[in-house]
């Protein structure tokens, strides 16, 4: 894999598309076990990312991710803003200075992102948060030491679906305790969109 700034932009573009297309769906998931704004938040944030990326030139992957991170951080708000922002910021730091990112570095970047989310959210796997998608994805990539589109998408998808069975202990859904069961975690669904978009970007390249 040779992940370039252009691919990084392509990834964000495809992620934005999915978020915008599923804005109402994401909000409705959040309405069931949260406060109903997740789609609105993500759509506002990614809209701003697109605006930013469209108006500038980027040499390095790190620059694209850093710009995206800062934009999400300052536009999304809520719980998901700092988390997605932190994730991309950690990734940008991991690949700093590299014009083309290889599989190994990409996997390291994902590991850093996951660590960042956990630290910022003071959360672990199994609490019905986006970590429940990020952790299995990172684990799979780490085992293989390669970022493969199909594996990425499948892992993210089944992990996202598995959040349905979890009883929330972090985030707004935790207020519902047992009643949070049976509902997908909104942040996990948007995380899935992010990884599905990455898979498409990689496939387009392959």
């Amino acid at each position, binding site marked *: 894999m040779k992940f370039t700034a252009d691919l990084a932009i392509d990834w964000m573009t495809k992620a934005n598309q999915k978020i915008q297309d599923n804005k109402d769906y994401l*909000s409705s998931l959040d309405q069931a076990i949260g*406060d*109903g704004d997740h789609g609105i938040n993500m759509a506002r944030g990614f809209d701003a990312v697109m605006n930013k990326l469209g108006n500038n030139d980027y040499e390095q992957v790190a620059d694209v991710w850093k710009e995206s991170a800062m934009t999400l*951080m300052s536009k999304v708000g809520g719980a998901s803003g700092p988390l997605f922002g932190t994730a991309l910021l950690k990734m940008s730091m991991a690949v700093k200075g590299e014009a083309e990112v290889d599989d190994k570095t990409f996997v390291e970047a994902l590991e850093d992102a996951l660590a960042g989310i956990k630290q910022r959210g003071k959360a672990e796997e199994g609490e019905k948060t986006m970590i429940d998608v990020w952790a299995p994805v990172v684990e799979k990539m780490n085992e293989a030491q390669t970022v493969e589109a199909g594996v990425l998408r499948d892992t993210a998808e089944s992990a996202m679906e598995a959040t349905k069975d979890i009883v929330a202990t972090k985030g707004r859904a*935790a*207020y519902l305790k047992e009643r949070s069961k049976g509902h997908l975690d909104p942040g996990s669904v948007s995380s899935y969109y992010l990884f599905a978009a990455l898979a498409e970007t990689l496939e387009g390249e392959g």
Partner: protein
Amino acid sequence: MKKIINDPNQVVTEMLDGVVAAYPDQIKRIPDTTVVTKKDAPVQNKVGIVSGGGSGHEPAHAGYIGKGMLDAAVAGEVFTSPTPDQVFEAIKAVDGGSGVLLVIKNYSGDVMNFEMAAEMAEAEGIDVAQVIVKDDVAIEERDGRRGVAGTIFVHKIAGAKAEAGASLEEVKAAAEKVIANVRSMGVALTPCIMPASGKPGFELDDDEMEIGIGIHGEPGTERKPLGSADDIAAELMDHILADMELAESDDVAVMVNGMGATPEMELQLVNRKVQAILQEKGINTHKTFVGEYMTSLEMAGCSVTLLKLDADMKELLDSPTTAPAF
């Protein structure tokens, strides 16, 4: 959705314009931000107090800006916590050299965004302390509790302490003491509708109420037939009193807070019963607040808050403030 608004996506910025236009001698807005501060911020050598959160809780938080209360309020989108850069702007604007206290309501998003702002401020050499309000007894586990109307008492008492010239550490301790002694619980009769989505946050039948509702319409503990004012007050008080150590002759402050659409007549009926319960237990009400302090857009319902007071807290609660909403 029946609202008096313009563009649903502009409600926050236009609301802040309205607040500044209402109190131009007291409050100003930092250009290109959603931060409003005291007109004379920063006050040199006074600890600055910053609060904020998602919008839709008006008069919280901008209405509590004033001498003896908040120095700045940061407004997020409706029901969405503000971003770190905005909170950072607020911190910078109110730091008068003695540091800044952040009053955060206990939601993942608020905590994360304010914490990141604190890190940014510390990196610039500003002393920042933070307290996390968790007064909603609808949640059993203390650390998971939401911050609701009790937050106003934190603003007031920490603000008075800062006004009195206390250090950041002392102001933080005063705020922590309020947090340790304040308990709230709410009920909803009708949902609220976010302007951007136009959809009610939940549904309730015509004869139902939701006990233990959150101020963003988060589901409560129990959904049941609408009770009388006395029953509702008694139920909220049961939960609150079960979680406090209140003995005869103890002093409390009482807040009966409207969620947005409940007329004051109804709040006074709830207050009547709350006071009767306290009187029966021999608990002394030092001061009562009935009105809209921490709302949820146009939700119908109310919350009851009790704050156990000692002599220090009484003095700080009673000291004057110019905040328009207190």
